[in-house]
């Protein structure tokens, strides 16, 4: 194994829950774990909170806490998706505590059951623990409902502890003055943060190496700054990944030390790596029985056949497709054919038509992504901005049929837009024409299937040329 090459006894940078690897390393995470454990085992208050940004180890912290607990002392419910209703959350909690699905639907009844369960557990010498991960998705109303649960706590006995874990939105909600009632009931409030400085990052790395049995120097001094840069300034998960890959690269290349250059190379590598493709959960088929009903036996979610449904297909090497820059479109302007390039123009009416006036909203939406108003070309004005009703109606003469690769479509540019473009400088005019062309192409995406190339750029360019012709009159 790679770590043996570095005289280590175990892998020091695994990104898996391992309580032995957190001591004195990631201070805020270690505190969160210790304080939550204290709140559960010794604390008087029934609420404990852990907040932190994505990827800093919140879920791993609660996993470490859960794994550290003596199972005979606790009844544990872990809710990982609290975006459902409060009633659903309660049913999930009750279901997990009792080990049986809860059929009750009324909130009051559920609260009564929950209350009874707390006392039953207490009588058995057990404490109920409720962990709610991703609590940031809970609405203020749901948080308030959760607060009401804490009223069930007895003065003499701590019947349950609820641990809320979530991103920084949760912190904002809890710290809001309106949530003062809630906040007062929080026993421990921990914030998991990035490793704050390069110096602490160095301590973190070296401590983990020592925990894995390391004694010598492995990372050169200049490597820590590189690590800091490549790990989004101290995200532990990324630091671990970089260090692990560096140690592996060091073993492969028989290095004696890891320097900053290696770290940077490693950091560049996984920037564009996508998440591994997994299997999809599949539903099973209904039961169809023409003779006698039997319990359904087949369960096809992990059917081998489904996974193997990747039969041989004709072999086709990756081809280098040159992008043709030649014009692929001919124009019809008010019925007069203006050829920019020789091609057939059958004028297929099946193509979608653009008959509406271009509004700011339409202009802003490309492929479902709304752009900010500030991104529009300067000086561009839109039909929905006009005060005169005449601008809202498209002049028939402004409708043009554009033909690309034998397919035609209507391109409407309102006279007001043309006037605006004419009044602006060449650069703005170009931008406006480009945006109009991009929008027209998106609306007529089939054009990429009929033109000489599927690459939309040359097609867009031709539409843009047409728009510019139109503007220049």
């Amino acid at each position, binding site marked *: 194994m790679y770590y043996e090459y570095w005289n280590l006894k175990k892998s020091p940078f*695994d*990104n*898996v*829950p391992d309580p032995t690897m957190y001591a004195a390393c990631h201070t805020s995470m270690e505190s969160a774990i210790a304080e939550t454990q204290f709140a559960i085992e010794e604390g008087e208050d029934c609420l404990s909170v852990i907040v932190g940004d994505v990827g800093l180890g919140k879920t791993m912290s609660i*996993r470490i806490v859960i794994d550290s607990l003596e199972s005979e002392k606790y009844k544990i*419910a872990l809710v*990982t*998706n609290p975006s459902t209703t409060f009633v659903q959350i309660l049913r*999930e909690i009750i*279901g*997990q505590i009792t*080990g049986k*699905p809860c059929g009750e639907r009324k909130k009051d009844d559920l609260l009564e059951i929950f209350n009874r369960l707390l006392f039953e557990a207490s009588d058995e010498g057990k404490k109920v623990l409720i962990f709610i991960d991703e609590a940031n998705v809970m609405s203020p109303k749901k948080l308030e409902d959760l607060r009401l649960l804490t009223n069930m706590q007895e003065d003499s006995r701590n019947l349950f502890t609820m641990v809320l874990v979530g991103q920084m939105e949760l912190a904002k909600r809890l710290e809001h003055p309106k949530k003062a009632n809630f906040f007062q009931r929080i026993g421990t409030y921990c914030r998991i943060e990035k490793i704050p400085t390069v110096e602490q990052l160095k301590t973190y790395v070296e401590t983990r190496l020592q925990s894995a049995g390391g004694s010598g120097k492995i990372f050169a001094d200049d490597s820590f700054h590189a690590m800091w840069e490549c790990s989004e300034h101290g995200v532990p998960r990324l630091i671990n*990944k970089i260090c692990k*890959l560096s140690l592996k690269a060091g073993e492969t290349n028989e290095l004696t030390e890891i320097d900053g250059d290696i770290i940077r*190379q*490693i950091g560049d590598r*996984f920037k564009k790596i*996508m998440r*591994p*493709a*997994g*299997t999809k*959960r599949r*539903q099973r088929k*209904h039961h*169809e*029985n*023409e003779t006698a*009903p039997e*319990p*359904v036996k087949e*369960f096809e*979610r*992990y059917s*081998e056949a489904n*996974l193997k449904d*990747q039969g*041989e*297909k*004709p*072999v086709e*090497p*990756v081809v*280098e*497709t040159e992008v043709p*820059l030649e014009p692929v479109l001919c124009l019809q302007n008010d019925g007069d054919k203006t050829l920019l390039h020789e091609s057939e123009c059958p004028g297929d009416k099946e193509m979608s038509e653009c008959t509406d006036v271009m509004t700011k909203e339409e202009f802003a939406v*490309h*492929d479902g992504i709304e*752009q900010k108003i500030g991104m*529009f070309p300067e000086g561009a004005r839109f039909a929905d901005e006009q005060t005169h009703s005449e601008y809202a109606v498209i002049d028939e003469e402004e409708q043009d049929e554009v033909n690309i690769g034998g397919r035609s479509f209507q391109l409407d540019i309102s006279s007001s837009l043309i006037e605006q473009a004419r009044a602006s400088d060449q650069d703005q005019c170009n*931008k406006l024409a*480009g*945006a109009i*062309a*991009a929008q027209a192409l998106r609306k007529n*995406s089939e054009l990429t299937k009929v033109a000489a190339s*599927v690459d939309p*750029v*040359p097609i867009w360019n031709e539409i843009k040329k047409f728009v510019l012709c139109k503007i220049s009159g």
Partner: protein
Amino acid sequence: MHKKNLALRLFLKGCRYDSIGSKRDKVIDAYRKCIKYDDKFTSAYVNLGFIYLAEKDCERAAKCFQDVVELEPMNPEAFNNLGFVYEGMKRFGCARQAYMQASELDPRNVETMLNLAKVQELEGNYHDAVKQYNKAIKLAPDNISPRFCLAVLYDNYDMFDEALEEYKGVLDRDPCHLKALLNTGNLYVQLGDNDQAIKLFKKVIELDPDNEDACNQLGVVYKSIENYAEASAAYKKVLSLNPFQEEAHMALAEAQYFQYRSKFNGVSKEEIRQRLDYLLAINPDNGKGKQLLKELIEGTEKKGEI
């Protein structure tokens, strides 16, 4: 007895309606009437449950499967179905419990082990999920599913060697497993073995010429080893599959720019510029696009081309 016969007829009627794609109301009505005449008709509950599930009415689906569990408390499949609905409702704790009950009833059921492992994975319970997958692999060593699921779990947790070993196990049994090939390729990219990665991505494309992910990743690797012509070819292939992908346009423009700068290949400045203009037309805020366009213009100005 008469009622049971009537129930059977109604059940079969429901099945027929279902198979010919009749209106859901009719199918549901048939099954519900079946249950009305025979409230122990398990299959009617099961089918009704799946109809509700298909309509995303998880509450009703869960109720149906819960009824099945009560009718057949010794049937592991009933618990698997119930767990599946809870999983769909993202009530992972209850799903886990249902799967555990299924597992108690049939401890050697690989399907149940996989279900349980998946839920444990979703709950962030890495160690138990690994144990479950390994148990399934031990029981069914030639079954690809547990091995592949375990490989993906390892991969997600950056356990590179372990993931590679499991993917290898999958590919030994099915050399054409596209996802295993693709994921192994990505692992090799991270481990810096670009030749292996290229080989695997090419194999994916050979098996599935329309695999956008493989083409994209091939482009990434070629670009990282400065083979810009091949990178451009890979990104062009991506665009032939999905012409409006902004990221692929940007990646192609970058690859072509480096290709243009290297002078080894005949890519024209105008081609790159057009692509960047297009990119900025569809997203005027594309910072990388703006920067590259600036570099392209300034670079050519220095060369005296403008």
